[in-house]
């Protein structure tokens, strides 16, 4: 008798638990495809086979070419893709991809497979084959399960001569025995993380033809003035200061971008400008580069959003680190060492490489856009 109320509640409770559990499973088994602007194209359910992610062939129609045709010959297990004026032949279970018969086939590590009666393509197909078919780059963020298809023309210029002239100053913050910056609970220090990212940016940037200079390339203490002197002496086109964040709450997380603006969200009391006769002295300040800094910050924000769970915020404050640097300058906080998830991510070498790659790409996109606006006819 006393069980009667539970007879109605228990099935309801069971349904609620079932809905929540299945919802969780569905969320975990989808990959988000985003475009170059980081806008969502679609969320695709994938199948995991021997640790490899497989997508239905129809995914290509949604994210790459809506006009693609993909006849599949069941008895022969042969898939033919006609897209972007090219014909691809794939044999299920085989790693060779024949693009326009007669040419050398492209070899994948994981073959396309028939899973649950449907031909499926491995994620590697998207990463390796799509750049061969069109002018795109396909990036995969394993942590956040995101695939980004970005037009290559945006960041890879036809002539790279202009970008050779670019000097980019990377400033890994803090350093030395007594200035480790902030520290995570498991002992990860800011000075080490930012130096690792800085060195990786230098390595990748130099490979791409950019001239990357570091304000410190080892664990040494450098004063703000020393960093400023190194920066201004090198006459760079861009300055990027790398830091790790901390908060009094462990819930703060994610990357942040800061621009130096004495009249930003915090305002510095105005000091009178010296006047000689009737002329005001025109003093060069960081504020002269505010617009360029904002442009670079928005490019960096767009690129880094691909690695971030939540959209990255750009804030403008009087930032002392950037105050006397006479070029477009940004301070990037790579994550919160006071947050367990961020600290774990920042101690992962793969994440460090991914962040460095993204920053280098952002520098390239920015440099291309500046060169194009300076020389719109490409002369």
């Amino acid at each position, binding site marked *: 008798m006393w069980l009667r109320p539970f007879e109605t509640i228990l099935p309801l409770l069971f349904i609620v638990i079932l809905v929540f559990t299945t919802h969780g499973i569905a969320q975990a088994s989808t990959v988000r495809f985003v475009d170059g602007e980081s806008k969502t194209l679609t969320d695709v359910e994938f199948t995991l086979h021997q640790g490899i992610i497989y997508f239905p062939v129809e995914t290509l129609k949604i994210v790459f070419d809506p006009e693609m045709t993909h006849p599949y010959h069941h008895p022969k297990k042969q898939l033919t893709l006609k897209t972007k004026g090219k014909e691809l032949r794939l044999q299920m279970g085989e790693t060779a991809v024949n693009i326009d018969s007669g040419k050398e086939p492209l070899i994948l590590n994981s073959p396309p497979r028939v899973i649950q009666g449907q031909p499926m393509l491995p994620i590697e197909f998207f990463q390796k084959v799509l750049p061969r078919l069109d002018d795109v780059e396909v990036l995969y963020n394993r942590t956040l399960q995101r695939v980004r298809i970005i037009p290559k023309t945006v960041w890879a210029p036809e002539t790279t001569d202009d970008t050779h002239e670019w000097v980019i100053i990377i400033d890994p913050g803090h350093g030395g025995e007594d200035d480790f910056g902030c520290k995570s609970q498991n002992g990860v220090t800011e000075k080490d993380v930012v130096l690792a990212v800085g060195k990786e940016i230098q390595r990748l940037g130099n490979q791409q033809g950019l001239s990357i200079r570091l304000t410190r390339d080892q664990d040494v203490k450098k004063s*703000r003035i020393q960093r400023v002197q190194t920066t201004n002496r090198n006459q760079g086109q861009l300055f990027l200061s790398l*830091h790790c*964040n901390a*908060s*009094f709450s462990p819930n703060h997380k994610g990357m942040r971008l800061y621009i130096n603006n004495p009249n930003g969200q915090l*305002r510095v*009391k105005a000091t009178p400008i010296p006047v000689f006769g009737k002329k005001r002295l025109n003093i060069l300040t960081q504020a002269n580069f505010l617009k360029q800094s904002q442009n670079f910050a928005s490019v960096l924000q767009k690129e880094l959003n691909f690695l971030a769970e939540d959209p990255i915020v750009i804030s403008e*404050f*009087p930032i002392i680190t950037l105050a006397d640097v006479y070029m477009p300058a940004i301070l990037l906080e790579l994550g919160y060492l*006071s947050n367990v998830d961020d600290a774990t991510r920042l101690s992962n070498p793969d994440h460090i490489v991914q962040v460095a790659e993204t920053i280098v790409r952002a520098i390239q996109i920015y440099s291309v856009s500046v060169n194009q606006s300076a020389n719109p006819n490409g002369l």
Partner: protein
Amino acid sequence: MQYFRKIVHSRLFVIWGITLVALIICLAVTLVLISHSKRIRIVDAPPKLPDAPNPTDVLPAPEQINIFLLNPTSLEITPVKTELRLYPEPTERLRQIVSVLVQETPPDYRNPIPRGTLLNEVYIDSQKTAYLDFSHHLADGHIGGTTAELLTVTAILKTVFDAFPNDIKHVQILIDGRERETLAGHLNLSQPLRF
């Protein structure tokens, strides 16, 4: 008899005699003093105070003010009401309010002022700029990071501007009496600030 005379005239007898007389005199003087002290009239109650109290001795009435602390749920600097007996003089008032911010952390809030920080001195100049001089703990005990630095500065500025909306326009943070470029290497604190 001769033996008795010998004793009386002996030196020892004379010394003992003098000592005895001295003791008797001391005892007599002590007794006189005691009896004299008993004659002093003891007042039963303190003298009556004047009816009008001294204005400087009056405790101010309690007032409600806001101190700004970090709410760990919203992750924002939010006002927390507290009651204080504030003096009317602005500098003293400012000292009282900022001292509360430095010292108090109600449950469910995080104080973005590092532990051990003391408020050394406060001053308001004619241009309505408040100078707050903190002990070195504010910088040396800071956890670092741009966000943490911003939270610290925001908590101080919001507390001051909320209590003095008209009397204070800028706040300059000093450390042990000196201007300092920054607390933790990011925000520029070398000049007075406002929102």
